[in-house]
């Protein structure tokens, strides 16, 4: 999974011998469309750190005929860096730049760099909380800053550029340069924020339980179970909306079961049963059947599940399917019970 690789890159940032000076933060402005052979880049902005100071450079294509020179300049600027950081660059900026290099008969320098696209990471971390995960909205919701009046919306950018080509009046381009500059600034800030958050989510000033469960899932995927457990516990303590609460009970329980703490899992399932959760009943039935060897108890929980199923608002075909499963389980448990009874009384 490419995402995991970039997550590793990010989490291990402070542990590896990569330094912050190996990263370059890049954003482009283009002639319009989302890609394709006829779309070109006319402005590239770079942010980078050198000697503990932050720098921002922009290069501009003042005439489409000068594209080879523009790309050569771009290549030179990129040479010192090992890691490229973008927002949505995997599907937008990078392929577009690669196209331009190919169309001008060059090898693309991007192919030799690591590429961290913060969009995929952002999606995972704020999956439960933010529907709009555009960079602009993240600035507002997460980084708490806004843009000045000079800001022009992204969709106007191509129009302004073509007007400049026609009139050679560069004044309206100011807004475009500003837009690009702020994009890079918030990209860099977001990067630092994410690095902090993932390193120690509970250290945040006002930890959001919805974010914590999202990060817990990331930790789980990375195999950091104790980290995940800590976050699940913290989020249940802070409190969660009903839907996420149930979801978290199940996730947390299944993590416990996988790590052999079946009793801890049981406590969570029992909590879920308070909400008439059918799957929780089934898990408990399994627990009694396999761990406690108590078919009687297992049967009771299966019956309870069947009862809840009748009242549930699920679609008919799913109910049908679940009912069949539960009936099958019940049948099997009865047989098991009978066999056992027969053995006991000869």
């Amino acid at each position, binding site marked *: 999974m490419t995402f995991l690789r970039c997550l590793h890159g990010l989490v291990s940032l402070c542990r590896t011998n990569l330094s912050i000076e190996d990263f370059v933060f890049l954003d482009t402005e283009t002639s319009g469309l989302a890609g394709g*052979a006829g779309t070109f880049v006319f402005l590239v902005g770079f942010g980078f750190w050198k000697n503990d100071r932050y720098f921002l450079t922009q290069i501009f294509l003042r*005439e489409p*005929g000068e594209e080879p020179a523009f790309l050569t300049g771009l290549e030179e600027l990129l040479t010192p860096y090992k890691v490229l950081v973008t927002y949505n660059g995997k599907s937008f900026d990078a392929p577009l730049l690669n196209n331009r290099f190919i169309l001008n008969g060059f090898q693309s320098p991007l192919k030799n760099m690591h590429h961290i696209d913060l969009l995929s990471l952002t999606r995972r971390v704020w999956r439960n909380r933010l529907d709009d995960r555009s960079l602009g909205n993240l600035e507002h919701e997460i980084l708490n800053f806004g843009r000045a009046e000079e800001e022009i919306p992204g969709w106007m950018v191509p129009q302004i550029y073509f007007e400049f080509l026609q009139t050679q009046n560069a004044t309206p381009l100011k807004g475009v340069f500003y837009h690009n500059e702020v994009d890079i600034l918030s990209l860099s800030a977001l990067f630092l924020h994410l690095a902090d958050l993932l390193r120690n989510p509970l250290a945040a000033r006002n930890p959001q339980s919805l974010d914590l469960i999202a990060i817990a899932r990331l930790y789980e995927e990375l195999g950091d179970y104790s980290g995940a457990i800590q976050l699940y516990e913290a989020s249940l303590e802070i409190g969660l909306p009903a839907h996420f609460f149930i979801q978290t009970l199940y996730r947390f329980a299944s993590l416990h079961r996988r790590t052999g703490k079946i009793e801890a899992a049981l406590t969570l399932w029992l909590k879920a049963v308070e909400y008439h959760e059918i799957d929780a009943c089934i898990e408990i039935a399994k627990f009694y059947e396999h761990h406690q060897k108590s078919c009687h108890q297992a049967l009771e929980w299966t019956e309870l599940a069947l009862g809840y199923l009748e009242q549930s608002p699920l679609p008919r075909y799913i109910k049908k399917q679940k009912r069949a499963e539960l009936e099958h389980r019940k049948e099997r448990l009865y047989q098991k019970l009978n066999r056992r009874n027969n053995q006991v009384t000869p």
Partner: protein
Amino acid sequence: MPTKNFEQIKNIVRFWQTDPSVSPNICGVHVTPPNPGQFVPLPENLHSTFRNTLAAEGIEALYQHQWDAIQIITQCKNAIITTGTASGKSLCYQIPIIDNCLKDEESTAMLLFPTKALTQDQYRNFLRFSPPSLHSSISIYDGDTPVSQRKKIRQSARILLSNPDMLHTAILPHHPNWEKLLRGLRYFVLDEVHLYRGVFGSHIANLIRRLKRICRFYSTEPVFILTSATVANAREHAENMIEEPFEQISDSHSPKGTKYFLLYNPPIIHEELGVRRSALSEAVRIGGDLIVNGIQTLIFTHTRKNVELGIKFLQSQNPEQTQEIFAYRSGYLPSERRKIEEALKFGKAKAVVSTNALELGVDIGGMEAVIISGYPGSIAATHQQAGRAGRKKQDSLAVLVASSNPLDQYIIKHPEYLFEKPPEVALINPNNPLILYQHIRCAVFELPFRQNDSFGNLDWTAIHPYLKVLVLNREVFPTSDRFIWRGDQYPSQDVSLRSTSGDSFLLHVEEDDRLTTIGEVDQASVDWMVHPNAIYLHQGQTFFVEALELEKKYVRLTPFDGDYYTQPLMEQNIQIISEERIRSIFGGKIHFGEIEVTRQLKGFRKISWQTREILATEDLELPPRTLRTVGYWIEMNPQSIQLLTNLNLWSGKPNNYGPNWDQQRKLARQRDQFTCQLCGAAEKDIPHHVHHIVPFRQFPTYELANRLENLITLCPACHHKAESVVRIRSGLSGLRYLISQIAPLFVLCDPGDLGSHSDPQSPMCEGNPIVMIYDNSAAGIGLSETLFDKHELILASALEVAQDCSCLDGCPSCVGVGGENGTAGKVETLAILKILNGMPLRV
């Protein structure tokens, strides 16, 4: 597969020739003698691994024509292959492509197929014939390719199977993503190019111009390999499309058994009216004889509805074999179609009823017998469908069952039309300004234009004006040395190669709160196939249409076990929106302008499965479908009509049945006890029709025509049948037929690209007679305006065609045909043409 009695086909033909219920209906037997075939060993220099793979698949020799084709292709010459169905056309390009990919690691190939089904079929063949080392480089790239696999395919495919629409919207506009494939492009295959004619073909020709332009950028010059079904001008068609010289491979040397081609005319079931049994029921009846004898049979029919009716009849006729009888048509899910193709190939299907969806080259193995229910409308399609019969050296059978349609009746009585005339020509016009404009627009996006660039065989002076228009439209920007794209849309997105656009509607069947998708219906057919309360048929099962969700584009069905099916009632209307040009001609005026064609579903009929009678007619309120387009129309002036009427050469006026008609009609219905005298259906809420046995026009007075002895009560459906037998065509409709036949030659389009209309008393022209030809696509692409400009040429040539045609009273090549017992009105058409050409009328 079970070995077959070699004599079986011959026996059944003999049996029919002596069977009293069949033999009188056989109007002709055309026998093609067997051909032992001509074999040559595989080319010497094939890659050794490849040779082994071929041997493992049982290919150790080639037919002579395959060998010839491979020689031409490997000498880097373009080839068009037109050998018939089952002649191994695909191997002609598969061998050089695979061999080349094995010998040269950089070399690649792209193949475009017209349908997804064909692409899948070819993909399996490529895997079969190529060594495993090559398998990961062979890929399909079409609308169904999962997004997650696309990137890998773009980077690694060396043999890419796709379709024209993908090349147009996904590959060319994003060609840098395909750098590897394009840099190595050695072979380019375009399959079934006979489909690419008219407007569609002109689009494809421009798509090829765009492709070649991109290939030049990557320094490649692929060899083009085209395949085609029979058309009269295959090589010329290929050269027009690719703009390069071609060699044609047309002689097939694959072995064949004897082929029997029977012409079958259904028996007359009502002597007085001359009405014949329906083609479909006769096709099912003789199909039954074949199925009983274990002969695998494919029945072709025109419409999707007929496919479903056919399978129902066939299944109820052969109840023990229901599981081995299938229907096949567009609208089924790909998986279901695939299942039927397999069942055919491996002999599990004994009979399949299909539309022309199976006419194309999907590999279903050879059929033992093919029944064509109703003339498919062209010589080429007839041969293509009949060509599905023939399995290696076994004898095979094809039967054309005529419908009561006048054209069918003509063909069945003039078999030479089918067997001696060349098939239809394929015409394209890549330089049609509107089509060219759209593709230059797409081409700018793909690579900027620079001064003195060319586009296909057009030089800078020809394309520069188009670029200037694009600059004015602010879609293209001229820099100091080039024209670049500046629009905020992908130009290929609003250029549809095919005239049939729009998404299809999914068909959901509802059971237990859950929807299962059973198929789809294309946008154009939604109204009449799945209107609310319609009965929809699928593999012989019936469903009731609960809801047609026009916005969400789906149809909700529930299983249905009622005893009727439905028939839509459509209405078409043409209106002039604005008249742009008008000019006086001999005998009238010609016009050019914007028109609107409105089609609306007014209601539907419920028809009983058992008796075929109309149980009820219901109204519907659905939004009309409109086509805004352009048209050219000829208006005749009253003086011309007066002249024709005086000479008794004008039958355009509608019949006035005289003052006693209402009374006679009531008497006739009473006499016939309000029952259809053909099918026996009783009259329900709407009165039955009353029909003149001998047409009204053939009597000197209305009293004679309206005598009760000459009247008969018929239900609307039976009346339609009876009318087609005695149809007397007016000179005006003959003119419309003739002009729509020859107009494509003047604008290089396909007959289907034009619509036509005639009206002896048109409200559009103050009640004067008109013949109208219009562009059959939204907004049009300028065909009718060219026709307006070439009016004199067209009319002169129309007169020449009608005069020179040796037929007595009309034929499909001149003014068309009348009913079996009617007339085609050729004399009248000739008279009209003389007036419009400014020639004196001599009688």
